[in-house]
């Protein structure tokens, strides 16, 4: 009897359905649950109101990241509301026996950085967190996506959520990326082609040479931003690159368990002949360093291009004009040469060691532009340690930059790292929404190389001109 060819997504999804409800969602089992201080307190309150307990505390991991300061972390958190949230996470984790990496813990950092870093994220898993960038973990061939607080309560109390199965999309990028083109550019390019809502209702598999040749950190950057085209999540089939990354990490399987896991993980790929609801193909040679000019991540262009007219950009003209007005830009202007006030490198999108290596490669031997304020924020303490050990800190210091402490920081500006109204920030984060980096702030999303080029020149600059 022949077995029907299945996609990677089908294999992982179908093996986690506890019950199918007719004309309703699937009851979907969750292998790993990450929680943080912002979206979990109300879930714990809700559980207490119903008299429920955490069903499998060993499957949930807590870290503080969204609302933490990035300087003086050894001091008490000044904002009483933030301090209260951090305390709630600690208390709730302690009460139910959930592993908690709070502020000051050497394992602390952004949830989507520390999960993979410590071997908690593994291929074939289902992973959720009350954070839309949970899609990051899809880089390992996991089904990972963001959930709301009611769903956090469901996972805590029953290890399941109710989910309709999304449709399937495959995005193939083949060919070879040019000099100075990073995973961030690949994903910003894809989103610019599909729009910020182009993959809504779908789960995406990224396939093709470009992803096969990408490091795990690069794959995480790509999957991280799947949500920015509306996708439920994105995933990449695990391969030797994946297995080499995981092997030896603290919570990864060891010995016999490793061999057994490996055999299973190797089966996690889309079979020949399996079909998708929709498929897109792109050529790596068409991708330039990217930058956004508007107020959603789909409004991105190659850095050497001019801002498109509303007719070319598509969508509603009034929404487009509102967006450019907010940014203080006009149609058909070039992006190159625009003045930059702030530069932010960090976040769950680009806060890993390879991102800081890339940033340092351009900064080395140059100086920070005087008028630029730069926030250099590692994704975790482990990344911070690597920055020090590899001599990257020396390069940064020499060039006039200061290293901050780990956290989500200026990506969502819940803490004090806020870009002032009207100022322009080149940011390696994931969203350029109005006010995302502080009320009235104007965000230009880009790669760590573009961020570095802006930091040393003070204007939007093609990083290829600065690469030796």
């Amino acid at each position, binding site marked *: 009897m022949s077995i029907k060819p299945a996609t990677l997504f089908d294999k992982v999804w179908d093996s986690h359905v*506890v*019950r199918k*409800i007719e*004309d309703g*969602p699937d*009851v979907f*089992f969750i*292998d*790993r649950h990450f929680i943080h201080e*912002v*979206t979990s*307190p*109300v879930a714990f*309150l809700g559980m207490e109101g*119903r008299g*429920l307990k955490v*069903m499998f505390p060993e499957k949930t991991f807590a870290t503080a990241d969204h609302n933490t300061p990035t300087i003086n972390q050894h001091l008490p958190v000044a904002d009483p*509301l*933030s301090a*209260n949230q951090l305390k*709630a996470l600690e208390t709730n984790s302690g009460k139910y026996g959930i592993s908690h990496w709070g502020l000051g813990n050497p394992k602390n950092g952004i949830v989507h950085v520390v999960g993979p870093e410590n071997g908690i994220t593994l291929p074939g898993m289902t992973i959720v967190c*009350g954070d*839309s960038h*949970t899609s990051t973990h899809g880089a390992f061939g996991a089904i990972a*996506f*963001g*959930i*709301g*607080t*009611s*769903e956090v309560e*469901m996972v805590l*109390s*029953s290890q*399941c*959520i*109710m*989910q*309709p199965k999304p449709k399937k999309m495959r995005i193939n990028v083949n060919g070879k990326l040019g000099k100075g083109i990073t995973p961030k550019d690949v994903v910003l390019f894809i989103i610019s082609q599909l729009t*910020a*809502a182009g993959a*809504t*209702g779908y789960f995406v598999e990224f396939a093709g040479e470009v992803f096969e040749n990408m490091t795990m950190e690069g794959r995480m950057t790509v999957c991280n931003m799947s949500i920015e085209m*509306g996708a*439920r999540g994105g995933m990449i089939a695990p391969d030797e690159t994946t297995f080499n990354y995981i092997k030896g990490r603290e919570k990864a399987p060891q010995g016999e368990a490793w061999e057994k896991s490996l055999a*299973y993980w190797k089966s996690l790929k889309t079979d020949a002949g399996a079909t998708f609801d929709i498929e897109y193909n792109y050529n790596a040679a068409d991708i330039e360093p990217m930058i956004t000019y508007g107020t*959603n991540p789909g409004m991105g262009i190659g850095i050497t291009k001019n801002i498109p007219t509303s007719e070319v950009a598509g*969508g*509603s003209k009034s*929404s487009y004009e*509102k967006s450019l007005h907010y940014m203080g830009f006009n149609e058909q202007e070039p992006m190159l040469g625009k003045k930059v006030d702030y530069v932010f490198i960090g976040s769950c999108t680009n806060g890993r060691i390879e991102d800081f290596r890339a940033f340092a490669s351009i900064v080395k031997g140059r100086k920070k532009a005087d008028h630029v304020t730069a926030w250099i924020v590692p994704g975790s303490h482990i990344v911070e340690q690597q920055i020090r050990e590899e001599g990257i800190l020396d390069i940064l210091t020499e060039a006039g930059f200061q290293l901050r402490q780990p956290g989500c920081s200026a990506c*969502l*500006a*819940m803490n004090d790292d806020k870009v002032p109204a009207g100022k322009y920030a080149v940011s390696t984060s994931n*969203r350029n*929404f*109005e*006010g995302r980096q502080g*009320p*009235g702030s104007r965000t230009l999303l880009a790669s760590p190389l573009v961020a570095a080029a802006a930091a040393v020149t003070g204007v939007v600059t093609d990083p290829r001109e600065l690469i030796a």
Partner: protein
Amino acid sequence: MPIENVDTDQIIPARFLKATERKGFGDNLFRDWRYESDNTPKKDFVLNNPIYSGKILVGGKNFGSGSSREHAAWAIYDYGFRCVVSSFFADIFKNNSLNVGILPVTVSPAFLDKIFTAIEADPKAELVVDLSAQSITIAATGESESFDINSYKKHNLMNGYDDIDYLQAMKEEIKQFADKSIY
């Protein structure tokens, strides 16, 4: 609100997510579109115009994109809305809405245009949403369209049940499933 891509950072900016209880979010609904930085209301924003009122919020395409913060749905609910109408919703926002008791109604782009036209002609124009019949009607013109919702969620909303109750009732089945899990 005929604006496309209304994201969750506009619905409730991150700096208002610091509460540990679910209350008071309605005050900060659309904070930066609704108020100047000195907290005076912006006159041209729809929620500040007393001519508009009601329990149904109508928004442009791709409503609720961005973050998973359920606070966005809480803010809309707390303000007094019970239904959001758009031609297209972001996935997580749609789930969150259903989980907090807001009905997201997806209409065709043409019908959305008709609604905006009706509101433009008469800001008091009435919209009738009937969950039981799965229909939305512009009262003045009688134009109507049906909308989709799965029967499980419809049953929950109409009876005030939620997913947590459902899951609690099948915990033994979940436990058996978990026993076979390799993770």
